[in-house]
């Protein structure tokens, strides 16, 4: 799914007639450059995911919950034989659990580097060039704040660009407290 969209975007930019390119160059106007990026909605926030990553929306796939782990790890799913952790950023944003029947799963990357996120609607393709950078970050949980590279605004929606790998590695790291021996 993602691959198709990605191709479409590429085509769209490639389809611009050569003549237009040259005219633009002659007129010395800034070239209309499309910088596509996936936009996903999680709770009130939007997150940007690079289109260079392999992404897919998963339908009707069972998420297997795990006991005694962080609330933002919903469980693990079996994606064509690979175990993929499922993260629920709403739990991190403290916006309460969403209705999983209405939500979808968005898988990023593949093989053992794959992870899945609960998203509230289908991903959109955004053009980064059209997004307006925010000067100040909205108030966010401290942990998330550490991994924000940039924040944008478009038509009232806030879009966050995050250090993807670092964020999820931190979220996946198991923090626990040791108790006294039970026995």
């Amino acid at each position: 799914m993602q691959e198709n969209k990605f191709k479409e975007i590429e085509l769209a930019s490639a389809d611009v007639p050569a003549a237009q390119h040259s005219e633009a160059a002659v007129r010395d106007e800034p070239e209309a450059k499309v910088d596509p990026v996936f936009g996903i909605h999680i709770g009130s926030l939007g997150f940007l995911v690079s289109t260079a990553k392999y992404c897919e929306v998963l339908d009707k796939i069972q998420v297997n919950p795990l006991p005694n782990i962080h609330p933002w790890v919903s469980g693990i799913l079996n994606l064509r034989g690979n175990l993929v952790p499922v993260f629920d950023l709403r739990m991190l944003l403290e916006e309460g659990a969403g209705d999983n029947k209405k939500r979808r799963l968005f898988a990023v990357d593949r093989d053992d580097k794959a992870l899945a996120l609960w998203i509230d609607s289908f991903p959109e393709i955004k053009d980064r060039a059209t997004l307006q950078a925010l000067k100040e970050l909205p108030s966010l949980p401290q942990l998330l704040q550490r991994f924000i590279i940039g924040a944008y605004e478009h038509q009232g929606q806030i879009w966050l660009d995050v250090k993807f790998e670092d964020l999820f590695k931190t979220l996946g790291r198991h923090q626990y407290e040791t108790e006294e021996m039970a026995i």
Partner: protein
Amino acid sequence: MKNIFQITPRNGVDDFVAVIEELADQSAQAGYYGLQDANLVLAEAIRELQLDEGFQSDADLSALVAAWGQLIEKFSDAPDQTAKAMISYLRHPCLKIPMADDEFNMLEQQLFSDANAAVDANESLGELETNAADKASDLSEQCLINEQIIIIEQLADQTAYEGLYGLQDANLLLAEALREMVNEGPANVDADFIKALSGWAGLIGSYREEPKRGAEAIINLLRHPVLKISMGDDEFAMLREQLATEVSVNEFAQEVSGSDDPAELETFAVHHGNPKDGEHTGSVSRVAQELVDLLLLEAEQVRFYLQGISIGDNESMLNGLQDAGEELERFANMAKTVGFEGLAQVSTHIILNIQRFIEDIDDFTSERYDLLLEWISQVQEYLPSFHESNAGQLIVAGLTDEQWALSMSFEELAAILLQIRTESTEVGNQTETARVETATDEDISLALPDDVNHELLDLLLQELPVHTRQFSEAVQRMQSGGSEQDVEVAQRAAHTLKGSANTVGIKGIAVLTHHLEDILIACASEQKLPGRGLANSLINASDCLESMSEALLSSGSSPHDAKAVLQEILDWANRIDKEGIPDSEVDENLAETQISSGNTTEAVEKLAPEQSQATFVRVAAEQVETLFRISGESIILNSQAHESIRRMKKQMQTMQIQFALLQQLGAELEQLIDLKDLTGRSFGAVGTGFDALEMDQYNELHTASRRMAEAAIDAKEISQDVGKELDKMYEVLDDQQRLVINVQEVVMQTRLVSIATIAPRLQRSLRQTCRMTEKQSELVLVGENILIDGDTLNAMVDPLMHILRNAVDHGIESTDERLAQGKLSSGRISFEFDREGNNILVRCRDDGRGLDYGAIRAAAEKRGLLKPDEDMSEEELRRFILRPNFSSRTVSTQTSGRGVGLDAVRAQIVNMGGTLTLDSVQGQGMTIELRVPLPLSMTYALLTHVGRYRVAIANKGIAQIVYSAAGEVVIEGDKEFLLLDGVTYPATRLMDLLHVPDHRKSQRTYGAILLVQNDDKTTAVLIDAINDSMDVVIKSMGHYIGKIPGYIGATILGDGTVTPVLDIPELLRVPIRAVKGVYAEPIDMDEPDSMLPTALVVDDSLSQRRALEQLLSDAGYRVRTARDGIEAAEILVQFQPDVILTDLEMPRMNGIELAAHIRTQEKIRSLPVIMITSRTTQKHRQMAEEAGVNAYFSKPVRDEDLLVKMQILMELAAEKKGKRLIG
């Protein structure tokens, strides 16, 4: 100018000075003030020389002045080089110019600027040059002849001593003729003849070896028309006859022993041994050079002791002389051992003198002190140029001074000088004979040593093809033309290969590359490319190296022609040792070599012993991982198929019941139709005239019902067949499952290594630590043959090393202490490895002093962790030492106390999912137990539910499964216990272990109870029910999910669902709760080893790099590596190590350049740089020192020496840094 040369030699000095001063004036007029200065300095020096008593020969002076004239002549052609040459000329010790280094440098600068000015004013320089050249050339011819006359006359005297009167006559004739010629004026001097004359001494030399041929040559020269010797043919023939018959071999000893005059002895030394005579000059072999370097080091040490003496202070004089004497004794022994007999004799004489000085210390004057210093300087000057035939004269001449307490007779001196002369050629030659002549089977053996380090071997195998290719490419370029650069590349490749092969211990490659390197070094030093023959041999050798490299990777036996190739290379090396690199045309010897080597090949093929070694295939680790993953997938798919068949069989059973029912119904229907004839009446009676009993009447209903009954039977039978097929299929799947599991196990085994592979590292680390702490200890490994996962073993090396160093440093007592306590003098440390379920258990014991609970308590109190009067058990105190940065020692030691204590070891073990426990008895030793889980690929698991979660429980640690009815769970207080067969077990619920809330309202009942063995106790774990049990494949939970305590991983079940696989013993050991509501700590927290000192290792050889890396990380360093200076410089931008270890020769940027670069960088300029190289000469050492290298090690390096030096340098650097900060 003529008159200058006609002046008698006695007054000659003034005239030489006049000529030079005239040159100075002309230089000044032309504006070349540098040149003027240089001339004036020289003139002054020559004047001084005249006053010097020791200076006697004008011939020397004339040679000097002639050379100066030539230099001035060259000045305009190559001003830069000539300026340098002029300065080094002026620096010549025999001129004794009293100028400091910086003054010389200034003069050089001035000469440079003269040269630059010359570009603008070419004319005047040209004029000056013409004058200078005229004068110098006249002067030089005249000088040469004068010089020769003196030499020849001396030769005449000398030969008379030897009784070689014919030769004396020849010399006298020649001298007389030359004098005549000089008197006639320079116009009559034939320049070509002068050149020929300079070979006279050589001619006499060869005459001594081959009288007949030499006599002919001597006569020919005497008959030269220029000489105008008025002798008839018959007179010449007589002389030739006389020359040819008088032969003697003991000429030199005789001649010197007959002399009484020390000055004459010296004169002999000067003239007879003049390098110009071409007799003894030649380069020094490398081995000889190394020996010289060693001696130089010793000599420096002697000088060091001497310099420490302060005259007047008797104690300092006594000590200094004593030390110097002892050191000199070592020097003498060493000199004797390596073949400098003469030098050894002189040294012994000096030692005797020193002893006299000591006996009579009041007479040890500053003159005598200077004498000693001067003598050692002479030795230091002599050694680097010992191969030059006049080299030893100063040492011997120095002994004639009256200040010596013991003098030496002239005979003794002469004998020693003779000895030194002989050495000048012998020391070099020894190394040539050291090269073997014949290749042996052992020399080509590729057999791996028994104690081969597999890691290094792996590296060699990786490096080998690369360097071999480089070598063969360079050699091929050489063959088709090529350049000196190719020689260098090939030499470097050979050098690297030699080093690596030696490190691993593969003799075949080491020997071959050793000789190859020598040949290539010879090519480089003679600046000759190998000729066709040699290039062919080199190509053969490179092919052989390639085959050897392939052989090592596959079958392990030497290529069949290896011995022949090695022989060929040996022949070349031996020939080059003797004759130097042949010119490319000379190939005839090679043909022979090839023929003979052809024969050897056959012989080798027959004789070569069968070497069988296991075949190895090198596969990328990633590929093995993929294979492993795929085999895991197959198992999962197989179990899914199994699951499916199980369901099908169940359905088949249901179907069979249905078919049976159908059959039964059919039978019933048939019966009804038959017996009750429900339809017969309506059909049967129609017009047949028979009663129903008289004849059976059948209709469609009968037929249909019968067919139905038959169909039901058929269906049943078919279903039975299908059932059988399913059974078969089940069996096939079973077989397949076994196979796939086997595949996985085999793949898994590729990752298994024996624990013994780390034994050498542990033993080495123990030896090092023992040496550094000066303790005695042995390490015993038990169970080291167990195979475990390589990654796990690697991860365990660090903690084990640390425990080992800790044990020696803190645990084992000193020998005296041990003996006093009635223990054996040597400490004993044992590492016992054992498998415990899926864990590897390591018990590290030592019989040292054990934990000092008092010290721990004191340290804890000091840190405020404990109140002075607080009660604390030993077990609680033990926990303190596992706290971060807790150390009971006040001073950290070099060996283990680098701020990393047991806490770091524990952190590493816990990171691996393992545990660490301590036990210690004061005075008897300490035991540390490590338990590290091994990666599991499959396990047998029980499936159960915990609340809403489905989990698989690995059978790890499960001793027994009992059904709840079998025992009774009793509650005492808030704890539950299981009573079973009269034994009480502590009980816990899996739900509680996993912190799953219990939402059920009714009283819980437990379907099953697991008795789980954990450490040394058994716990009952209560679960709801066991739903299923099966083999499951354990998979990791991906890149993002870290280790979850109590989880081994997760598995995919037959229905595609994923469940976690639990490790109950681990859950029981550390009951843990995921922190809720609190965010995870940032991932970039400090690693436990961030306190370790850091080192950067720079070496272009992978194996050397890795060997150093291993050594340093075993010694407790964090190590980064770079392949050459450029890469190191790049790393240094980001990373500042505490110390740098670098090789000398590397591509792109070598070690010297790197050191120089570091010294220019503000941030890292004080970084200690240690150079480790195979280069041993003083020259390299000095170059390194000048570039700012702090320590220079020649291979092989003793590990401890290196580590100690590193520590010292790091401490110095830290001190400096501290001072700078304070400043």
